[in-house]
């Protein structure tokens, strides 16, 4: 299982703050596409991704057991 945490406006779009994906291995780029397809997240392309509290690049591989945070641009203040 890969645990995906959604922050801010992405929660509203997905209707939840946490998603469990039953996937073996997936790149950051691919997980963005998967989430985009399944949950129609409008800003996933512009979102930062962190895997296990570390900034991730598009080609990084996510393993089962990893915790992924999807952090969209937030501008309120």
């Amino acid at each position, binding site marked *: 299982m890969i645990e995906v945490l959604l*922050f801010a406006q992405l929660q509203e779009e997905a209707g939840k703050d946490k998603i469990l994906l039953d996937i073996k291995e997936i790149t950051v780029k691919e997980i963005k596409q998967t989430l985009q397809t399944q949950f129609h997240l409008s800003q996933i392309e512009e979102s930062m991704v962190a895997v296990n509290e*570390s*900034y991730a690049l598009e080609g990084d591989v996510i393993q089962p057991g990893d915790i992924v945070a999807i952090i969209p641009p*937030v*501008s309120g*203040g």
Partner: protein
Amino acid sequence: MSVMNRYHRQMLFQGIGQEGQAQLLSKQVLIIGCGALGSSSAEMLTRAGVGEITIIDRDYVEWTNLQRQHLFTEEDVYQQTPKAIAAARKLKKINSDINIHPVVIDATAENLASYVQHADVVIDATDNFDTRFLINDLAHKCRKPWIFGACVGSSGMTFTIIPGQTPCLDCLLKVTPMFGATCDAVGVIGPAVQMVVTHQTTEALKLLIDAKEKINSKLIIFDLWNNHYQTIDVSRAKRPNCSSCGEEPTYPSLSYHGRTKTEVLCGRNTVQIRGKQYSLELLESKLADYGEVKVNPFLVSVDIDEKRLVFFQDGRTFVHGTNSIEDAKKLYYQIVG
């Protein structure tokens, strides 16, 4: 009364002590924006005894602010007091020993530069990415640390950006986001604001007393409603060729081309804003929350209260129904963030 007595509990704290307190009293902080983040930052730093605090904001106090913006009262709403002024009045009653400079202007590349130059630390309390990228460029050009902060809903994030050391906002976001979620669109609860401010203030205190080894090198992201708190190592995000913090910076937000420009269209009760080019499709879905949206292949328009916004494909936006650049920009940033 003795100044020392006022700060007694803070000087007892080993991390600051008597020496740290003396340093705080000799330093300057620039707070850009005096909404929710800015008013609370200003209050905490005023109580802590930072010697000089400059607060920049273009806006005045409204009913919807009172739910989360500290320092402001109902009277400020009735008087439509500018936020920076309203804040400064309260702050002087809290601490008459320090200097508070309220500045009621719309921050631009020109007028912001000298404020950044004179500050020891810059605190981001803005509500839009245009100004944040402006701060990012100015802070790197002037080699000043700045503390990014933002929140919506029950979430927020903050990161201390130190020129020559950490990645910058441009490194983190790679591209200027099309839209940043705003409190006007998604709502916000007071604790999300305070959580960001708490971290920003702590980092400001560390920077001001030069407690370098204590600076939080991580980006903090949290969601109070869903009980998430992560500290993210972003060192990998730093790009040597970054146009703001890289080896040959061009500071794109400071160039004429990179700036959002505004002008009043004479006799038309309209303000034109020339900014980023937005995808009309994305705009269409975003604007639906605000009112009836009309679309054609060249533009998207929406009526909000007494005003009409028209977004063109080339990055121009018309705000019809006002001659005030301030009002027009406010509405514009409420939508695009």
